[in-house]
């Protein structure tokens, strides 16, 4: 009798709130502590500087692009992983996690090995006149590489939990596979899809190691906010912290605006 509505929630055990609070404090306290270090006087001139604005704008553009790329590539991959039963998919599923485990810098090396001038596809790309490394495209690729697993894992989990019951009903009503996917499967896992997209966006926004290795750090082209923060740290640690706060604020804002109800 739990269908929707004002169903009374089954109470949570009281002791649960202890560790939950501890967890929340553990995550939030450091960020709050960090803000106490900020010299608010310089804050606004700092964050409105030309370099900061340019980095922020670049970060937003590339993160959006890589999130879209993650959706385009990740939805099909997650669906295949969740719905096919072939054995070799188990292997593929583990492989897709690789970018999660690789330290991002190593991820950057891997991208260079594939798409760099001396990489596996280097000569082919060179022949086509395409130079990926150290361009804005490289930033997007680096971000996509590290973010894709997030989308795939979240979405696959959601697809498995949701099951195939409704897909089957839709097919029996005459819906072809594409219709089923569009009108039933994906709408039903919308919360999971949104969570995945938010995770991917957040990860792209914070991406540093793979970007610096694969795309370098050039203002306006490849110097995203995290790279700028890294630069600032060398000269002025406080400025770096202040810029981090901007990054956090932007992330929370974008996520808050984009997130559909109930997702995440």
């Amino acid at each position, binding site marked *: 009798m739990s269908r929707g509505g004002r169903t009374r929630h089954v109470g949570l055990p009281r002791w649960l709130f202890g560790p939950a609070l501890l967890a929340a404090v553990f995550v939030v306290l450091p960020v709050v502590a960090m803000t106490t270090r900020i010299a608010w006087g310089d804050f606004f001139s700092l964050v409105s500087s030309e370099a900061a604005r340019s980095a922020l*704008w670049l970060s937003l553009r590339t993160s959006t692009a890589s999130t879209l790329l993650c959706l385009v590539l990740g939805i099909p991959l997650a669906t295949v992983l969740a719905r096919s039963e072939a054995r070799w998919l188990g292997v593929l599923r583990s492989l897709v996690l690789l970018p999660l485990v690789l330290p991002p810098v190593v991820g950057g090396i891997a991208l260079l090995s594939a798409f760099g001038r001396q990489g596996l596809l280097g000569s082919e790309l060179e022949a086509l006149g395409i130079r990926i490394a*150290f361009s804005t495209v490289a930033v997007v690729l680096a971000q996509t590489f590290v973010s894709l697993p997030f989308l795939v894992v979240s979405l696959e989990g959601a697809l498995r939990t949701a099951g195939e019951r409704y897909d089957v009903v839709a097919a029996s009503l005459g819906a072809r596979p594409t219709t089923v996917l569009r009108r039933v499967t994906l709408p039903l896992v919308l919360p999971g899809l949104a969570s995945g997209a938010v995770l991917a966006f957040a990860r792209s926004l914070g991406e540093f190691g793979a970007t*610096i*290795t694969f795309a370098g*750090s050039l203002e*306006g*082209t490849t*110097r995203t906010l995290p790279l700028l923060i890294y630069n600032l*740290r*060398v000269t002025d640690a406080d400025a770096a912290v202040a810029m981090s706060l901007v990054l956090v604020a932007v992330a929370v804002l974008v996520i808050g605006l984009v997130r559909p109800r109930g997702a995440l």
Partner: protein
Amino acid sequence: GDDGDSKGADGKGGDKTVLTVFAAASLTKTFEELEKEFEAAHSDVDVKLSFGGSSDLVAQITEGASADVFASADTANMDKLVAAGLTEGEPEEFATNTLMIAVPPGNPAGITSLADLTKKDVDLVLCQPEVPCGSASAKVADAAGLELKPVSEEQSVTDVLAKVESGEADAGLVYVTDVTAAGTKVEGVEFPEAADVVNHYPIVAVKDAKQAELAQQWIELVLGEGQKVLEQAGFGAPTP
């Protein structure tokens, strides 16, 4: 092309020629100042600086990043680029640097000499031996016959300074310029053994640079007018 992108992105617009300079992270402050000077002198030029660890920058250039000038924090990395045949002409030394002990303001552990760093209750941080300041630290210690026992071997000078600034560590070995740049956040303790180990900064134009002429002019600026700025930042004069 990324040129078009960069112009659109940074909003500077116009058809400015872009000069791309790759420089070691320890040169951030000075080179940013030189950028202003250079752009003032060349109104149609936009200087783009890319800072990083010297080895990272060498790797990037090797992988095809388009740079016009490369300024390294040590000779070893410069030699790698030369060996890869990616340099135009001979690298020239434009600055030197020596080590200094950095301590938190007020020097809570009361460090006065290199030997104090071996005290048991002193939390010492060093650069890891693989990076220039780390190998310099090791050489200094060897020369003085001391065995340094750090609580951490950091990846870069920045990380060493961060640990000292935050008071996490009682002392760290960094370059004079780093102490100067950090201002009041750390104090410097000089020690005589530092003079034995000098770090050399070479600069070079990159082969097939898009802006070969401007690259040469930048190098000239660094070797000439720029020396004042470098000196202010604490760099030593290049060895003749």
